[in-house]
């Protein structure tokens, strides 16, 4: 049966090829449908938006879209399986791209995008999508972290303004923690879900970094000092929730903050949206406390990428151009509560006062090194291990040395 289907399939495609060659003599048949895989950002908005976009696209071009909206928890698995079975999507939305570029699976920007569209991207995000100087990961949306504080708790603890330095931060956390009754100074999520994000922010605000030039610098002295500081928050000052190395972001730290138990946490715009909806916590948003003079925050860029498949270049180009219409991309990003990636989008979204703290932070925000294919492994290694360093008896030095070794190995080969 399998064979029969294959035969008829090849027969159909053979006929199609013949017809097309007969038409205009160009090699390779143009596709009549493309597969688009999108990550599920929210139940309410993601599918409806892309469904509507697909319908518009099909109406305009006559090309069908096989749309798959995939849960974040299983998207890596599903994409790996698709590629393993030699059935990659045509367009994919993910939080990494460089490994795919390295494997030679992707169209570069100049193959599937007009110059006008490319020039509209904010410079930070264009850089964040380049593999060896060529743009392969097209920004689909962004987010930026900000420092959230519970105004009522800080006031009750006698902390006048949100802390600007690490010293002020420790004092503020101690005072909130001293309120007792299960109140927590700072919710520190270093569990596997998103530990690399929390770690990046602390690392950068102490002047450290993931890499220096081409070299990984995960176990630098600065970074060791930072991780020791986080470990002290948990074990010496005792101003965090129980077991911060085993607390995830969404159902751990954010949940505690939403419940009004926590003085301070690193949040982002979707958390603000939830807090506003629930109306339970009187919160403020500020810059990150820093130990290095200027506050640095983390921006996260998610990507769209176009896979090289015979005859799909034109269809994919049209799809991307449709998404990057300023009106269309802004409609989606606003609905999901994220931040713009294009100059035109930034202009349009400035009108929203609740986004001001994030938009102000965006130009100075840093990205994690997604442009390095080794990052895909380093990120997972950090997620699985950094929490161990802040457990009682954990060794920050040992953990960082191990991370550094593995990052160097990942960079060296595969």
């Amino acid at each position, binding site marked *: 049966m399998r064979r029969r289907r294959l035969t008829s399939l090849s027969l159909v495609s053979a006929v199609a090829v013949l017809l097309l060659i007969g038409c205009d003599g160009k090699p390779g048949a143009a596709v009549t449908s493309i597969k688009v895989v999108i990550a599920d950002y929210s139940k309410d908005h993601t599918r409806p938006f892309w469904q509507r976009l697909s319908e518009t696209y099909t109406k305009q071009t006559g090309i069908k879209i096989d749309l798959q909206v995939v849960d974040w928890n299983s998207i890596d698995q599903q994409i790996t399986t698709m590629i*393993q079975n030699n059935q990659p999507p045509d367009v994919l939305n993910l939080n990494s791209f460089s490994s795919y570029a390295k494997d030679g699976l992707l169209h570069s920007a100049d193959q599937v995008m007009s110059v006008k569209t490319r020039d509209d991207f904010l410079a930070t995000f264009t850089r964040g999508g380049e593999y060896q100087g060529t743009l392969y990961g097209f920004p689909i949306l962004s987010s930026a972290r900000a420092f959230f504080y519970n105004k009522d708790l800080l006031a009750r603890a006698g902390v006048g303004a949100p802390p600007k330095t690490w010293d002020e931060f420790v004092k503020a956390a101690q005072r909130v923690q001293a309120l007792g009754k299960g109140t927590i100074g700072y919710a520190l999520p270093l569990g*596997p879900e998103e530990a690399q994000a929390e770690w990046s922010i602390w690392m950068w605000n102490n002047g450290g970094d993931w890499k220096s030039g081409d070299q990984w610098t995960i176990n630098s002295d600065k970074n060791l000092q930072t991780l020791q500081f986080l470990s002290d928050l948990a074990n010496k000052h005792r101003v965090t929730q129980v*077991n911060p190395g085993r607390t995830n972001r969404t159902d751990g730290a954010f949940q505690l903050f939403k419940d009004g138990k926590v003085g301070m946490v690193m949040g982002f715009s979707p958390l603000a949206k939830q807090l506003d909806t629930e109306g339970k916590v009187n919160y403020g948003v500020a810059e990150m406390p820093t130990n290095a003079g200027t506050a640095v925050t983390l921006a996260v860029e998610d990507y769209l990428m176009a896979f090289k498949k015979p005859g799909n270049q034109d269809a994919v180009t049209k799809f991307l151009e449709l998404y990057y219409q300023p009106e269309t991309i802004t409609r989606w990003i606003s609905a999901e509560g994220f931040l713009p990636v294009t100059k035109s989008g930034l202009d349009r979204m400035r009108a929203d006062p609740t986004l001001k703290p994030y938009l102000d932070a965006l130009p100075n925000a840093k990205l994690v090194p997604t442009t390095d294919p080794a990052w895909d*492994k380093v990120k997972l290694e950090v997620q699985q291990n950094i929490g161990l360093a802040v457990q009682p008896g954990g060794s920050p030095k040992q953990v960082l040395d191990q991370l550094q070794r593995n990052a160097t190995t990942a960079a060296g080969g595969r």
Partner: protein
Amino acid sequence: MWLGPSLALIGAVVAYPAALLIRASLSQYSVTGLYQGSVGLRNYARLLRQEALTTVVANTLVWVTVIVMVTLMLSLGLAQFLDKSFPGRRLVRWALIVPWAASLIMTSKLFVWIYDYYFGILNPMLQSLGVLHHPVDWLGDDSTVMGAMITVGIFVSLPFTTYVLLAGLQAIPADVFEAARVDGASAWRTYRSVTFPLLRPALLVAAVLNIIYVFNSFPIVWTLNDRNPGFGHDTMITYMYKIAFKSSLRDVGLAAALGVVNVLLILLAVLVYLRSVRWRAQEA
């Protein structure tokens, strides 16, 4: 000729995927899942060198043995209880099905919130009963995670096991009990010499199916352990998933090798179990 359709079915759902799994275990893939050629048995050799392997195997052993044994013991009692007629029996029988009918992920999520240090109901309950003086981080404390997961494992395995044993009990003809009564056997003696031996086939089925089912169980460990870094509380099934997608190994070939090992191991475990049971039956 009549075997044709069923053979085709077995071929499609068992043999073909198994062949794919074995082929994958002999191949190398990049992080993205791109095939990069055959590497022979190298994935198996690498698997044996993984530092976490010993811990994971030990976890799996504890996980399967404790759940299956405790479940069988509790189910024997429950089945006996449900076999008696009492008012409301139908209701209790239905109630027992609920944890079985609920999705494993839902049940696991529910237990995450029961165990939770800050929001859970278990700590306040135990504290008000005076069992605990300080709250315990059930899912974050290395000494309690496995126990917490095993409890959930037992909870969801009970319904099926109880029903298999209940069916076994009801298949025992009434006249053997009558004969035992005529002979003047005590209740305990009747149970030991009549009920239990006649229940053995049902017990065997329940044990074998549970071993396979518990070994392959993914959602409980995955959900209750998702906050813990590293591989300290993983079983071979969740470890396989982490190798493929969630650890820095990110290696489908290596995970496939572990998948093959898992299948062989479970076959071996069941075989050993069946042999030992038959051996004991002959001796008796």
